[in-house]
């Protein structure tokens, strides 16, 4: 295991996992000296009955100050302010965020407002603006992918002023994250597959990236082993509780890994594709991951080869000569996308030309690829990618990912 010349690592979030982890919430809040939490969630999560499960798990032991179930799919400053007002009116003293990325971001935003008495959230954007602990925040993720239950970032959009505010602080980390298999049992196959590959990408990019460290390595390896062993199976058989819990654990482990190292070009291109074409993040990650491996392999051949152990298991690892391991790793990720495609009845996209929008039209028209490549140039995540990319490189990768063909090794920088 490699020790870098310098590294930092922090994840002060307490992790509580299990098939009945939600039942621990009252005790956790008591330890945090809170007795009247507000639940923050969205309509989809509430409609799937997940808030009822949470309420059922804490009933008789906890007074819920308010349930706010109208967080939009995209975090919104007005919603943050409105829910902060509700929190105050109802005399709440803690937050329970039940949902995915937008719910977590919104809850973190509310927490800044109610803890700092802020009327202008903007004052607290950027790094280092928060100086003291906020109100207790308990995160209950309902997808197994983003890892935002262990990340210190929140993005809140001001739709009126067309601004995207980013908040970065250790004080934004939830105090506790609850990983309970019941929260992901009803996740549809395609979303299970895409969010699972999001977690896979976090772990893989963290492992071969330039700012890896021993703890991001250890958590990434564990995440990759769990995803390789469970994702295809749980996409095929959604009610497998053990596999659901394994994926929830994997997403958190991958979140610890990437938030303490960095991600690279797969995220750069994924952010750009999401912003230009509105494609869900996990879908982009799944499609682009093989290309991140191919494009960077000449710089990280040995490190990538090590991933065959958690992906394929000891027998495959031992049976593959060292110089062929990276090939096997790339083939393994492609095969996983194929298996997820089959397990989801064709709904998991393998390449961009297969992605369709809600009306069934192609979501990523080929002629938009130059726009995506241009947008990618402005994304900071490229800084930690092992090999450099310019516009032409981005476009070359996008073309291949659109068509679903391997990169031409002759076209990669050396």
């Amino acid at each position, binding site marked *: *295991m490699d*020790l*870098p*010349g*310098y*590294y*930092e*690592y*922090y*994840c*002060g979030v*307490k*992790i*509580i*996992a*299990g*098939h*009945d*982890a939600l039942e*621990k919430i009252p005790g956790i809040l008591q*330890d945090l*000296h809170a007795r009247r939490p507000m639940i923050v969630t969205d309509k989809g999560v509430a409609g799937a009955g997940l808030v009822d499960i949470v309420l059922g798990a804490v009933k008789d032991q906890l007074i819920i100050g308010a349930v706010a179930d109208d967080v939009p799919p995209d975090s919104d400053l007005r919603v943050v302010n409105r829910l902060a007002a509700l929190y105050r009116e109802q005399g709440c003293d803690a937050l329970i965020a039940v949902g995915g990325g937008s719910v977590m971001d919104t809850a973190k935003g509310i927490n800044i407002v109610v803890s700092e008495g802020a009327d202008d959230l903007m004052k607290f954007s950027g790094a*280092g603006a928060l*100086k*003291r*602990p906020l109100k207790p925040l308990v995160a209950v993720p309902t997808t197994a992918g983003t890892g935002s239950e262990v990340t210190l970032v929140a993005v809140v959009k001001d739709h009126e002023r067309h601004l995207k505010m980013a908040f970065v602080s*250790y004080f934004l980390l939830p105090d506790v994250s609850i990983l309970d298999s019941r929260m992901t049992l009803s996740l549809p196959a395609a979303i299970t597959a895409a969010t699972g590959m999001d977690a896979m990408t976090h772990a893989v990019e963290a492992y071969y990236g330039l700012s890896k*460290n*021993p*703890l991001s*390595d*250890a*958590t990434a*390896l*564990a995440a990759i082993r*769990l995803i390789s062993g469970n994702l295809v199976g749980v996409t095929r058989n959604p009610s497998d509780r*053990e596999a659901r*819990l394994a994926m929830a*654990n994997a997403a958190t*482990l991958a979140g610890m890994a990437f938030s303490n190292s960095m991600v690279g070009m797969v995220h750069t291109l994924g952010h750009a594709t999401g912003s230009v074409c509105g494609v869900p993040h996990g879908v982009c990650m799944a499609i682009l991951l093989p290309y991140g491996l191919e494009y960077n392999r000449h710089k990280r051949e040995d490190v990538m080869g*090590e991933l065959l*152990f958690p992906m394929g298991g*000891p*027998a495959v*690892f*031992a049976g593959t000569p060292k110089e062929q391991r990276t090939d096997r790793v790339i083939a393994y990720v492609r095969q996983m996308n194929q298996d997820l495609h089959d397990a989801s009845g064709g709904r998991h996209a393998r390449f961009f030309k297969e992605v369709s929008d809600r009306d069934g039209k192609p979501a990523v028209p080929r002629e938009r690829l130059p726009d995506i490549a241009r947008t990618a140039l402005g994304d900071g995540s490229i800084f930690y990618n092992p090999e450099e990319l310019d516009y032409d490189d981005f476009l070359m990768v996008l073309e291949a990912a659109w068509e679903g063909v391997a990169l031409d090794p002759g076209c990669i920088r050396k």
Partner: protein
Amino acid sequence: MSQPQSAYAFYSPTKVLSGNKALENLPVELDGMNAVKPLILTTPGLSARGMEKIMAAAFGDSNLTIGIFAGVPPQPDLRLIRELYGLYRDNGYDAIIALGGGPVMDTAKTLNIAVSGRPEDLERLADRDPLTKKLRPLAAIPTLDLSGYEMTRYAALGPLSLNSPALIPDLMIIDSRTVPEEEHKTMAATALMSMTQVVEACLHPARNLLTDAYAYGAARFIMENILNVLRHPSDRKGRLALANAAFFAQTSFDNLAPGMVFELGVAIARSCQTKPGLVMGLLLPHFLLLEMRKGASTRKDLYLFIGGPEAFAGTMAAASPRKALDRIVETLLELQSLVPDFPRSIRDLGIKKEDMEGLVAQGPAAGVRGEYDPQDIRNILEKAWETRF
């Protein structure tokens, strides 16, 4: 293969800074915790080795005012805490930096309870009143002369035995300047203690994905570096890896309960005035043999931790637990050849046969708190007494 527990809790609140010039980042980190006037605690020994100068140089152009107390003895007591409490309060310090191993950390954790509330809080804690309140910022700068408890929730001071997650340091700095070469025996003992924490965490019935992840990092660093560091103590990177390993091992250990070998090692070392890690190293192979005989509880992939993926994948599954044991024994033998007067059995430490029976009989009173089968304890102690490695 037995699986890790599906239900678990894991907590590691320490921020790690490790490597080149890590020390220089301490002022910024303290500032992030609203601290500008830390009190540094260390030992006369470390002070004599120039640690104060190194710290002062690293803090050079920051706005920090630092205080230094370099008189932490090997066995700190409550009188020292009262003295330090006065010093801290009178000078308006707002954070503690603990530079050194066990006694310094025990002092720092105990002092932190006193300065974060009232000194009487200490007495209440000893009455097992749980401490849930956040304490003042505490930074740890550990060396390679460790007790095994530094980065954990445990602190012991004289008769006082404390245990609260609030005691875990907020920050840990590992910098080659503050991880100096120690005597061979000390470095070997620390590595063997970390190894014991790793192996016992790996075999613990309540182990989970995160205790496994930390144990894995620790085991790889120890096995890849311990012999090199003893052959070439100037290997700075190797020493840093061992200091990292000690933290990973302690974090894994802290999220489970202490194991039998660890507790026996501490108890025996206390009675014969030696380093606990040396005793643990001598007990560990016998413990593993016993576990293997019991069969069911031994995990098949222990050798992945001890030998690494390449060696593990190249070994037949049935032979794998045995290989793990062999590698540990080989390492122990190598250490014995590299370290002057390394004990070959616990008999060499001056333990008498009747002392062992006393340890088995006393159990918890001797500090062996877990519920172990007395027959297992007797078996391991006898083997470690009779066998000379």
